[in-house]
């Protein structure tokens, strides 16, 4: 801990960085086993940018998000070298500071709008509660602001007196977004915000989020398994596998100059909308059990390029350009290329 503090003094975070996360590790110590959910993650999010965090179930996306809010539930153990949001060192915060920090500096939208709203309060009250928690204001004033927030997300202000069950799924998610944005956070984490919604409603909600983000100059972390949404919304992409970021770069880096075999596998698994007869090429096997991770590269057992060395050695992150990182030992051989062709 003392060492951590010393490091914190040494490292200065540039002004234009909205969120800085260094070496995040999360494990859940259970009776019989220890689940290693997140195993060393670094994120640097610049102000006004959107980072997409993609990966499959169990990759550690949501745990990473919860760690940033310091909301990982018991028996989770979070270790982290540094977490700075908007210039504030989150790891040094006491409980009281954290309560102020959550929602005002860093807000989160959860996946399921059906369960993240309280069924016994009107939506107006719930938004007003969030406002009053962070701003000294009267009830009436807060309720007025809540109505404005509803208008902002495309719901008539008159519906502020209604209860969540009177809203459809898409509308509920809009209310959740209104609550998250009520205190004008600098950084917004959206955890699969449209997974529970229909495609046309998803398109509505995504378009609205993009508009609000741009208007407010907000930074965003978009967690999703849908690479289509990433392409639509994000400036940068981090692909996660078994609790690690295995490829990180700008949207173009990752989508057009794919480097990691897992990222390639994800793209190959998706039906090609331009060529319907092309057979899908799934990734064989399953994600490894996080309580029993393989010794070397966690993806090696499913990787068609894997060598004996991959199964022994944990791959080091390597920069292939100024913005593009890949963690794959196969690139030790300078001639190594994956099959997916590069685009511009």
């Amino acid at each position, binding site marked *: 801990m003392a060492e951590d503090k010393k490091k914190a003094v040494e490292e200065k975070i540039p002004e234009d960085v909205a969120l800085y996360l260094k070496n995040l590790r999360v494990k859940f110590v259970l009776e019989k086993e220890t689940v290693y959910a997140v195993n060393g993650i670094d994120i640097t999010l610049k102000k006004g940018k959107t980072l997409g965090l993609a990966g*499959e*179930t169990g990759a550690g996306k949501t745990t990473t998000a919860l760690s940033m809010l310091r909301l990982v539930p018991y028996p989770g153990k979070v270790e982290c070298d540094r977490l700075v949001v908007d210039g504030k060192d989150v790891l040094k915060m006491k409980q009281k500071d954290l309560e102020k920090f959550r929602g005002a500096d860093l807000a989160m939208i959860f996946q399921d709008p059906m369960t993240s709203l309280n069924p016994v309060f009107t939506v107006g009250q719930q938004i007003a509660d969030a406002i009053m928690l962070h701003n000294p204001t009267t009830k009436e004033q807060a309720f007025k602001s809540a109505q404005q927030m509803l208008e902002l997300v495309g719901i008539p202000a008159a519906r502020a007196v209604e209860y969540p069950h009177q809203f*459809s*799924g*898409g*509308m509920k998610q809009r209310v959740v977004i209104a609550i998250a944005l009520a205190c004008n956070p600098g950084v917004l984490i959206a955890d699969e915000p449209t997974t529970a919604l*229909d*495609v*046309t*409603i*998803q*398109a*509505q909600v*995504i*378009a609205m989020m993009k508009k609000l983000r741009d208007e407010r100059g907000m930074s965003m972390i978009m967690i999703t*398994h*849908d*690479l*289509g*949404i*990433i*392409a*639509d919304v994000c400036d940068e992409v981090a692909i996660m596998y078994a609790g690690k970021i295995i490829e990180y770069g700008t*949207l*173009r880096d990752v*989508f*057009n100059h794919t480097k990691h075999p897992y990222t390639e*596998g*994800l*793209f*190959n*698994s*998706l*039906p*090609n*909308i331009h060529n*319907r007869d*092309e*057979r*899908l*090429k*799934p*990734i*064989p096997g*399953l994600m490894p059990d996080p309580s029993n991770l393989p010794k070397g590269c966690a993806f090696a057992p499913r990787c068609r390029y894997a060598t004996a060395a991959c199964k022994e050695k944990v791959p080091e992150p390597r920069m292939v350009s100024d913005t593009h990182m890949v963690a794959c030992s196969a690139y030790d051989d300078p001639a190594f290329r994956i099959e997916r062709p590069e*685009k511009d």
Partner: protein
Amino acid sequence: MAENILEVRNLKKYFKTPRGMLHAVDDVSFSIEKGHTLGIVGESGCGKTTTGRCILRLVEPTSGEIFFEGRDITKLGRGEMKKLRKDMQIIFQDPFSSLDPRYTINQTLTETLKINKIVTGKKAIENRVLELMETVGLAERLINTYPHELDGGRRQRIGIARALALNPKFIVCDEPVSALDVSIQAQILNLLEDLQEKLGLSYIFITHDLAVVNHFADEIAVMYLGQIVEKAPTQELFDNPMHPYTQALLSAIPIPEVIENRQQTILSGEISSPINPKDECRFAKRCRFSCDGCREKNPPLVEVKPGHFVACGRCGEL
């Protein structure tokens, strides 16, 4: 023309609710050729699942005819229907709730075989179970595992094995991959494709994922509020969508590619209530082309090109 395995005519399913009649499926007709796949797409509440269940009579249709291999099955009694269900099976969306948690893979499959007397004799049943497991790509060592010990992809494989146990000719796949991760989704889709080729199966593939249905189906029916609004061969539907709703659906697909300034048609509003719908185009409220005429009469499904059907009053002029 090839032989139709299934033909549905004017299928209706209304549910009684305190607020009036809910038109879940409202006058739907289609047919499927042997060995082909019909994709039914639409959003939650459009009646696609109810349609699938009516065909198997898991839900009794309010009216309409369903011909399976030329026989109207809506008139069949319980005993005859039970026999027929060997030929018609269903794979459910959620592999987590459609399996009995207290049954191992072996028990689940054995029960199906025993009840329907597909094979008799202990040894024969055991062999058939192993054969089914191999067909769907489940390792033999898993034979005595319970559903909770398995991941979603493997559970869905059990669901498929259970459907195949009775040697069906026709399977309703109700969102079989929507609960699964992409890499597993691709494994299951390939498996269903291989089985179709090997066993000559016909499918109804119900989904909300247009990219998946584009890959998987020969023909697509787009449903909106209980009715088919457009029906065409897959390539034709994607190349030349005519109904404004289909156009909006296609435009809303998130495409995993870097596209500069993609133009999307974003629909305003939400699906309206299926309870006591008025005699008007059900999509009119959300349609950017709607005019007074659209609100006077519900447009019928008409053939505008060979094999391409559209239900839109303004389709000719647009």
